[in-house]
């Protein structure tokens, strides 16, 4: 809990500060307007869903760099399934999630059975899926047009439930499930154990390969869900740029939320706070008239500051071991 506190305070501080700054600038507060909050919730939902999956992978001591390219591939393929091949919505959704899950399983297999490092496996994935997306779409931007025949699917994906955007609702449901899985179930404890010390976990009778592979599969499922929502959100999928560097947002959210890249540390709540913080920052750049070219610079600086602050607060007095 202590580890998420710093990021949480930063989030609260930003949310409290933005309206004040807006007032000082003589603007009307757009930050707290319903439209802005809804839009932010939608983005937090989409980013949060796959950030949780990335968090899981990071807890096992792994990484996934291919998420953004997978988004492009999923978006292109789903658009083709719905608009060109005339697949029914349900089938297209299942196939898209299935494709993402399959890629996750492939990564898991390569990492655990062939023993290629996660960084390498998913770096190759990043290149490969991007290229594949551009190839299958003949490098043409894909979209959903008028969504003829799958209006319901689009309305659900881009719509709201009692004023709350669907992606955020999905995020809440997924978070609750994943919180129980990670922090209360045997599976979750095993995941932390494998991330902390794979050897000792194996010596305690845990099938560590299965645990690691499963984390990539869960990430695949979540990327599939987020990918569908995201494709409908943009409604225009340019295979060369769709989802670009999204994996970095996910990794940043997980790290801000207290996941250690060495593995074995992290929490669902932390990842959620991290994901929210990133979106609030983005929003702030837009609202406060900061040049959008500075967008990444602001993100980078805040993440670095957050991690450094965390290091300083976390640094316990050196343990004294007499003997």
């Amino acid at each position, binding site marked *: 809990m202590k580890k998420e506190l710093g990021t949480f305070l930063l989030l609260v501080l930003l949310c409290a500060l933005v309206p004040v700054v807006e007032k000082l600038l003589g603007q009307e507060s757009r930050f707290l307007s319903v439209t802005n909050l809804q839009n932010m919730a939608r983005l937090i939902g989409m980013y949060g869903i796959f950030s949780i999956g990335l968090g899981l992978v990071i807890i096992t001591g792994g990484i996934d760099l291919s998420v953004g390219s997978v988004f492009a591939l999923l978006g292109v393929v789903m658009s083709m399934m719905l608009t060109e091949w005339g697949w029914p919505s349900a089938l297209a959704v299942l196939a898209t999630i299935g494709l993402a899950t399959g890629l996750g399983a492939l990564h898991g297999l390569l990492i655990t059975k062939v023993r290629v490092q996660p960084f390498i496996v998913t770096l190759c994935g990043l290149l490969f899926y991007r290229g594949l997306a551009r190839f299958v779409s003949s490098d043409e931007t894909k979209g959903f047009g008028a969504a003829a025949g799958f209006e319901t699917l689009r309305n659900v994906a881009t719509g709201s439930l009692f004023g709350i955007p669907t992606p955020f609702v999905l995020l809440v449901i997924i978070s609750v499930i994943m919180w129980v899985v990670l922090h*209360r179930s*045997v599976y979750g404890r095993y995941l932390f154990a494998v991330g*902390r010390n794979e050897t000792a*976990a194996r*010596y305690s*009778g845990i099938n560590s390969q299965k645990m690691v592979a499963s984390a990539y599969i869960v990430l695949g499922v979540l990327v599939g869900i987020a990918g569908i929502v995201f494709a409908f959100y943009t409604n225009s999928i340019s295979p060369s740029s769709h989802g670009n560097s999204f994996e970095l947002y996910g990794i940043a959210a997980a790290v801000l939320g207290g996941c250690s890249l060495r593995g074995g540390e992290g929490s669902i709540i932390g990842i959620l706070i991290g994901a929210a913080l990133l979106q609030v920052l983005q929003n702030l750049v837009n609202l406060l008239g900061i040049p959008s070219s500075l967008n990444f610079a602001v993100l980078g600086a805040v993440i670095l500051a957050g991690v450094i602050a965390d290091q300083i607060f976390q640094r316990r007095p050196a343990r004294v071991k007499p003997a």
Partner: protein
Amino acid sequence: MAPILQMRSIEKRFPGVHALKGVSLEVSKGEVVALLGENGAGKSTLMKVLGGVHQPDSGEVLIDGAPAVIRGVSDATKYGVAFIHQELNVLDNLDVAANVYLGREPVRGGPLRLVDRAKMEEETKTHLARLGLRIAPDTPLARLSIAQQQMVEIAKALSLNARILIMDEPTSSLTLTETERLLEVVKDLRAHGVAVIYISHRLGEVKEIADRAVVLRDGANAGQLAREEITHDQMVRMMVGRDIDSFYQQPVGEKRPRYFEVESLRTARYPNQQVKFDVGRGEILGLAGLVGAGRSEAAQAIFGVDAAVESRLMLDSRPLQIRSSQDAIRYGVYLVPEDRRTAGLIVDMPIRENVTLPALERYAPAGLISFEKEKQGAAEVCKRLNVKAPTVETRAANLSGGNQQKVVLAKWLALEPKVLIFDEPTRGIDVGAKAEIYELMRKLAEAGVAIIMISSDMEEVINVSDRVAVMHEGRVTGVLTREETTEENIMRLAVGGQS
């Protein structure tokens, strides 16, 4: 002889701990002084003061009769103090010469500061020769045995012209012959006038090598023993401050029916050799041999953490199919691994999570963990094993070696073991905790568990085992009954002779 080193009334306090309460130590040229004491007695702290890692709060250090100020490792080196740590401090991605001269490589080429390989190798060769070591200076460290790596560290100390050599548990990962070799080296250093401070829990070695033994207890001098006074009982009494009436549980050595049988086991390390032995219910079988004899590999293959080339095992006349540690655990076959900190425990996790890890389902009705149940279960075993820790939420990393070992044991005790394999169960553990571990092993045996104890500590093998199986290069060269178990017999089999 004038003492080369005098440490007088050294005081050192850490937050919450009074680690050294006016400790004094003197060592002369060409003298081997054994520094004894239980874990926590202050040996390491005292040596860290000498090595410049800690500054004393008060007291003085004199070298050659003159006050010495040691503010860091480089100061210590200047005074000729060299430290051989219990954990190896070598870089196994470099070769021997690079390790010996790490940080002070001879250079040539003026401002270019190129490493003078030729000179480095030449000088390394001289130091290695002095230790009777025939290794090429360009051999990668990774290819050497632990013992050889240790010798490289000693060579490094020699190259520093060490006059005072501190050796902290140098033999804890060495086998008998390697230990013998090391002790020869120490004797040779003594003959050359080096003052040696020798820390060891292996009292047999101390008896053999020490000219004098200085005993610490609770951060103070507990007394010292002259060469002729050094006996096992004297040392133990002084270390713990009382008699340990039955340090070793008396082995029984009676014939027992076969219970756990290794009919044929071939490991990846020795695919062409067959391991064969059996253990009776209630029996402690010692597994002796040199490092590299394949004992740990056999244990890991039995437990399923390493793939075996062939594994035919029988428990109570029924064949076992063990392909993974999950299988082994299902059958009640457990391993207490050699390396507690990396394989036995997840040191960053609390005791509770470590203890419950192999049997987590028991604490998780319907798949969800009940922290209450976990806490209770963990506290219960810890109490049974006398684990000394504030609470079960204490991180395993903060426990002493002995208590860590008990936590590893606690993992398995909750699961009613049928066969328990201990790999070097008391390595680096102090005398008091050692006695407790032996007692536990005997109790488990009496409760009907078949116990296999891999040990490189000859004294331990002889005094704890009901029978001893000896391995050499991947196969069992002989099994000794209680009556046949002698140091000579074990050694003969360990080097490949026949019984």
